[in-house]
């Protein structure tokens, strides 16, 4: 077991280097000269060259890449912002708690809104309850998150004035962004929980449990859900990918000063180190979550545990 954990942990390093390589290459091919872009068209050529030289932008691609990776792994240094020469990691760390809160509460809400409805639909299969839940999930899949956010904002912030329109200076400010993330995001989990539960309920051991006279509640909760839980956990982990990307849109709508908003303003200002750092950090968080899911898998599924204990 510990061998498996160590192997997975070590595998994270090449994966992260590859992720950094992809993001770095994409954003290095940005057309135009960073010095020229920051200093403006009127700046003399010497000043532009000086600027590029100071940032080391006149070195070959591979040298810059190795320097960048080295900085991240050795000093946790993601370079300096083109705009104000402050290390971008400082700015990100300042904004990180907000985005992290959004994502974590978002995932918790997705689970609360998704799993029970999926189970309910599966145990009430082919009834009006099942049909309504399926239709509800179908509509949720089709609702764009940013539109849903605007509707919520219109009714609860502008009309009813229950919550502030912008920002998260008070806790109430988090309510609408989290609902905006969680409600459309839960549709996938509802559908997946329903399908997985239906598959499990058709298994032989469920028939056995029923045949030996176990009460229906025990059959569902103890036998069926326990076996359906692995794909559900997997899906929750993957939904983090959507949530982390979704923070960009959510933070833009609700004017929340988190990492997502920072990415958007940095793209607008062509502040490449900032865009790069945010993307790499969010991708890194996602990789860690995928790793945790795999470890949870190995921990709770005896079949996987057995494979690695020998």
């Amino acid at each position: 077991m510990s061998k498996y954990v160590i192997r997975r942990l070590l595998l994270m390093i090449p994966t992260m280097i590859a992720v950094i390589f992809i993001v770095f290459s994409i954003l290095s091919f940005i057309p135009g000269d960073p010095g020229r872009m920051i200093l403006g068209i009127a700046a003399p050529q010497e000043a532009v060259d000086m600027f590029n030289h100071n940032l080391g932008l006149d070195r070959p691609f591979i040298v810059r890449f190795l320097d960048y990776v080295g900085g991240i792994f050795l000093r946790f240094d993601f370079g300096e912002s083109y705009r104000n020469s402050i290390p971008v990691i400082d700015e990100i760390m300042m904004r990180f708690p907000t985005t992290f809160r959004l994502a974590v509460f978002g995932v918790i809400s997705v689970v609360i809104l998704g799993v029970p409805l999926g189970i309910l639909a599966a145990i009430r299969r082919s009834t009006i309850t099942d049909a309504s839940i399926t239709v509800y999930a179908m509509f949720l899949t089709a609702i764009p998150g940013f539109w849903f956010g605007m509707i919520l904002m219109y009714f609860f912030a502008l009309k009813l004035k229950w919550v502030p329109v912008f920002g998260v200076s008070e806790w109430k400010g988090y309510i609408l962004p989290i609902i905006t993330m969680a409600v459309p995001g839960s549709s996938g989990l509802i559908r997946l929980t329903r399908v997985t539960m239906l598959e499990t309920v058709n298994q032989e051991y469920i028939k056995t449990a029923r045949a030996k006279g176990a009460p229906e509640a025990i059959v569902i909760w103890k036998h069926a859900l326990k076996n359906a839980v692995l794909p559900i956990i997997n899906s929750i982990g993957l939904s983090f990918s959507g949530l982390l990307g979704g923070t960009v849109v959510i933070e833009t709508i609700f004017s929340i000063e988190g990492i997502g908003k920072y990415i958007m303003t940095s793209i607008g200002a062509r502040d490449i180190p900032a865009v790069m750092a945010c993307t790499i950090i969010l991708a890194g968080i996602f990789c860690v979550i995928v790793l945790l899911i795999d470890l949870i898998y190995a921990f709770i599924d005896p079949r996987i545990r057995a494979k690695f204990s020998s």
Partner: protein
Amino acid sequence: MNNTAKKQSQFREFWRIFFQNKPAVVGLVIVILLMLMVVFAEQIVPEKLAFEQHITKAARMQPPSKEHIFGTDHLGRDLFARVIHGGRYSLTVGFIPTIVAMLGGMLLGACAAYFGGAVENLIMRICDVFACIPGTLLTLSFAAVLGAGMDNMMVAITITAIPGCTRFVRSIILNIVEQDYMEAARMCGSSSFRIMTRHVLPNAMGPLIMSTVSSIAGMIMMGAGLSFLGMGVQPPNPEWGYMLSESRDYMYRAPHLFIIPGIFIMVSILAFNLTGDGLRDALDPKLRR
């Protein structure tokens, strides 16, 4: 002769099952209506109305009325004309990246499955790494490099989608290669080319078409989202996502400005999803309830 007759009946059986599925039929009808709307946009309402500004207090942000059935926007432009012509942009962003990404995925996925070994390893590892980066962020990175604009946005969405398509195509092909009829074909001495074109491709076509239809919905959503963030279709062109973004400053005074384009986005996505689900159910009898 016998063979074609059987093929025909399979095809008919497929549509028979599809048409029994009422939500799927509704979805397909809406998809067809949307396409007609895009093709005959000019006949429904002239395009120049979508750009004609009337910046007077009386003409701006009118609620829906007889002359302007969807009302007017913050520059006094007719919202109905903008929504109808905006469909061209939104649906194009749904179709073109999906098809190009699918073709790219087919090429790479087929290469991986066919060559195996180091080639497969290389292609699949690269796809795995791409899967670590949340899709929205990857698309935004490409959009940041390429700059804002409809064409650039479509390129960004396409590149982001290719790794997922590659994994999907490869899994389908590997699934087919394991079937008994492939063994039979190989035993008969069929060439690899014949196996690819006569056995693998026809059997892969069904799942591929189904997945293409479903992913059009996702692409429409992605395109609208990027335009909403200002990375996609540029003003003054009407696009549903960008129209939502424009309406944000006038939400309180003119809620119809964000409600109507949003409904169009939602209905399009819903229609493509329903059609895709219907195709999947008709194609795979095992999933049928």
